[in-house]
């Protein structure tokens, strides 16, 4: 329901209009808490908007689980050298061993410690997720917003290209690109993932931009003498925080899964320890035949848990922009 309809129906049990998507408490504290000491012409900065969004996400139980899970992986990635018992490429141990006090998850067929590899592997996934997610979101924001704000032929052309990128199967394209660019390592993988991963976000942000630009406050900003640049970045952008956050987590999830897939096919740097390359070596050294199920199980579980944590966070983000999806019993 748009705000306009809510007004016409007029059944909000409060004298003033309820705030959009329940950010009321956050607003009240920032504004009323400031009393008379308000900076001249200060809108809520993007940072306070983000902080507020984070607070609302935290209030959704599923999202809270996701944030905690994500924090665990990020901490593991950052402190890997402290947490891991051995260097990930140290292959001086007995080969293909089962679990033991010295090697809780056993060793690989090349004689490396599985637990250490697992901890170090989080670095690649977290890095790829964050960097590629950020890159894809950046393209999505820039393209989606300018596409939503322009009209006419240019918009039609962009529309065609975004739709093309949406329907072209991403992973095959990544595989082809990676095959040509072999030897490019992690940077190549991130590049390939970004190139193929921005279209969905661009589409979502485009339609939101379009719906916002038809609102009167955008026309009003034009009448206040604002430049197009300022209208896009000061009037429209701050109203899309939740959608942008959502597309970031969506793109990061896709990036993590894509990286693991490419590494599993051996298209990344096979010497680099990542969860995908662990599975590549496990498959190539026939871990299935030797019965080393931990080698198969653990890296994939980590990928799945990391991706799940991002999806769970997005449950909270969804509730920000769509009150109907908030937790609760329907009927």
């Amino acid at each position, binding site marked *: 329901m748009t705000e306009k309809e809510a*007004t016409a129906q007029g*059944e909000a*049990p409060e004298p*003033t209009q309820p705030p*959009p998507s329940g950010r009321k408490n956050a*607003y009240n504290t920032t504004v009323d808490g400031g009393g008379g000491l308000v900076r001249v012409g*200060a809108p809520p900065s993007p940072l306070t908007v983000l902080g507020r969004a984070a607070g609302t996400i935290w209030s959704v139980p599923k999202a809270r689980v996701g944030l905690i899970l994500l924090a665990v992986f990020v901490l593991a990635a950052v402190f890997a050298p402290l947490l891991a018992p051995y260097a990930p490429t140290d292959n001086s141990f007995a080969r293909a061993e089962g679990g033991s006090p010295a090697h809780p998850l056993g060793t690989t067929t090349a004689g490396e410690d599985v637990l250490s590899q697992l901890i170090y592997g989080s670095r690649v996934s977290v890095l790829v997720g964050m960097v590629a997610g950020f890159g894809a979101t950046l393209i999505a924001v820039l393209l989606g917003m300018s596409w939503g704000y322009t009209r006419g032929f240019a918009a039609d052309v962009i529309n065609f290209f975004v739709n093309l990128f949406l329907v072209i199967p991403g992973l095959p394209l990544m595989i082809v690109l990676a095959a040509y660019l072999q030897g490019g390592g992690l940077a190549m993988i991130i590049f390939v993932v970004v190139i193929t991963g921005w279209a969905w976000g661009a589409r979502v942000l485009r339609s939101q931009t379009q719906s916002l630009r038809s609102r009167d*406050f955008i026309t009003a*900003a034009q009448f206040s003498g604002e430049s197009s640049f300022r209208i896009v970045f000061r009037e429209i952008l701050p109203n899309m925080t939740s959608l942008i956050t959502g597309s970031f987590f969506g793109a990061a999830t896709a990036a993590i899964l894509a990286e693991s897939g490419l590494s599993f096919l051996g298209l990344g740097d096979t010497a680099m320890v990542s969860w995908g390359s662990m599975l590549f070596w496990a498959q190539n050294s026939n871990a299935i035949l030797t019965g080393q199920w931990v080698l198969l199980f653990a890296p994939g579980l980590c990928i799945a848990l990391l991706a799940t944590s991002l999806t769970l966070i997005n449950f909270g983000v969804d509730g920000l922009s769509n009150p109907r999806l908030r*937790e609760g019993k329907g009927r």
Partner: protein
Amino acid sequence: MTLLDVQDLSIVYEPHGAEPVTAVRGATFRLEQGEFVGLVGESGSGKSTLGFALTGLARAPARISSGRIAFDGTDIAHLDGEDLRRQRRGGFAMVLQSGMNALNPVRTIGNHFADIFAAHEHVPRGRRRDRAVELVEKVKLPASVLDRYPGELSGGMRQRVAIALAMSLDPRLLVFDEPTTALDVLVQRAVMETIIELQREENFTAILVSHDLGVVLESTARVLVMHEGVIVEDGPAARILQDPQDDYTKMLLSHYADPRAEVVELPGLRVAGSQISTTGEGPAGPGTDAAPSGGAKARTGRTREAVVLEGVGKVYPPPRRGEDPVVAVDDVSFTIEPGDALALVGASGSGKSTIAKLITGVERPTAGTVRLGETDVGSLRRAGLRRLRRDVQMVFQDPYSALNPLHSVEYTLMRPVVNFGGLRGLEARRRVLDLLDIVGLTPVEQFAAKLPHQLSGGQRQRVVIARALACDPQVIIADEPVSMLDVSLRAGVLALIEGLREQWGVSLLFITHDLLSARLVTDKILVLNRGRVVERGETAQVLRFPEDAYTVELLDAVPQPGRAAD
């Protein structure tokens, strides 16, 4: 015979993650078979919540916290599932506000009827089609609508279909929740007449839920007035009109007047003949919605220019291939002299908003010229348009969408001050506070810091007006500036607009379908029908002695509580 007996009914809203609010408090009343009752209240009064509860549609986050709703002896307040569903045939039905959205877009109208007949099996199979035809004919629609999809019908037709669907349950109680609010003015009246006629013929008990006391007093025999969740008055329409008991009812009634009268008076505003004046007596309501405190400064001595339209036409290309081009405006000429106020009235689709777009340079005319002084507005490019906006400003219809929800009042007002006024720092801030004072939002420091959602509709509209004034414009175009506000808030905003014109000498183009507000703030009027001017002249003259049939039709559409009594 008592059909509905509501005892001490309370309903709470328990939204997720927020404090519960009591929306309806201790409602008690009885309805007899065949009564037509109005339930009136402004936004937030709890009237729709009550209407939904009476038809067994109270849903989370609303919850009936106490009391009983006895429908023909059965308490439906605590009935659930299948028991409640069975009650619906020959029981209670509801027509929603947004009839346009009340129909399933992927099912034909005929299938909607079929679904209801299948659910209750109260019409024999062989007679179902005939019965559906009967029902749509009752609401004055041709039988052919049964084969159409909702998207192929107009808003008024869809609302009629919704009424026919509710009627197909053979209800004894029918609740109409703002059945005409979302419709065009002239359609509103026609649909309302159908409802009144149906009620008379079929003799069901009807509750008309509405924000508009005028409409309710015109149509119903008995009125319940709700205010902040409490029924404050309950009595025959005629008695409430002549002798209202509750202060709130009195206040509501004071906001109605007949635009045809010699003297038209609303709290804070008075028109006698063609003399408009603000009476200085603030309208009832929250203090900040009072008339401006008069802190206006004298205008800078810029030359004032007239807005001149000569033979203006605007034709849009056909919406689909093979259709005719749309003529939105056809050969319209008028002049707004500096400091004048001109009303542009007409139903939706009459072309009045298109004219606003032409004057602000948002659209270009396909014929004729639009000028502000010597400037040809139609030929302006980017930079020229920007300069034009220093002189021509807009006040929007919907105060909820006209302010960016994330920006404080101060930021919103600061932008035009900085962009057009060239002021910086403290000077700019002083100007912003001045503007707030002019529109009566005091204490100004507090209002400057607020965000839009912390303001009421009337306060928001004042901010919108302040923004329009920020660059000291020559012309203000107000597009239905009060139509989205509660009736009791309208007079205050109108008085503000009128006061500004008097004190600042701003020209005003006032676009509206509501002839009462046109009478109150303008001295000249132009009536538009399908893009053409059908009548023009002094506002008082045209409204008191209308010549064109269309003007008369628009006049009849203004709700007047007194009319029922005549």
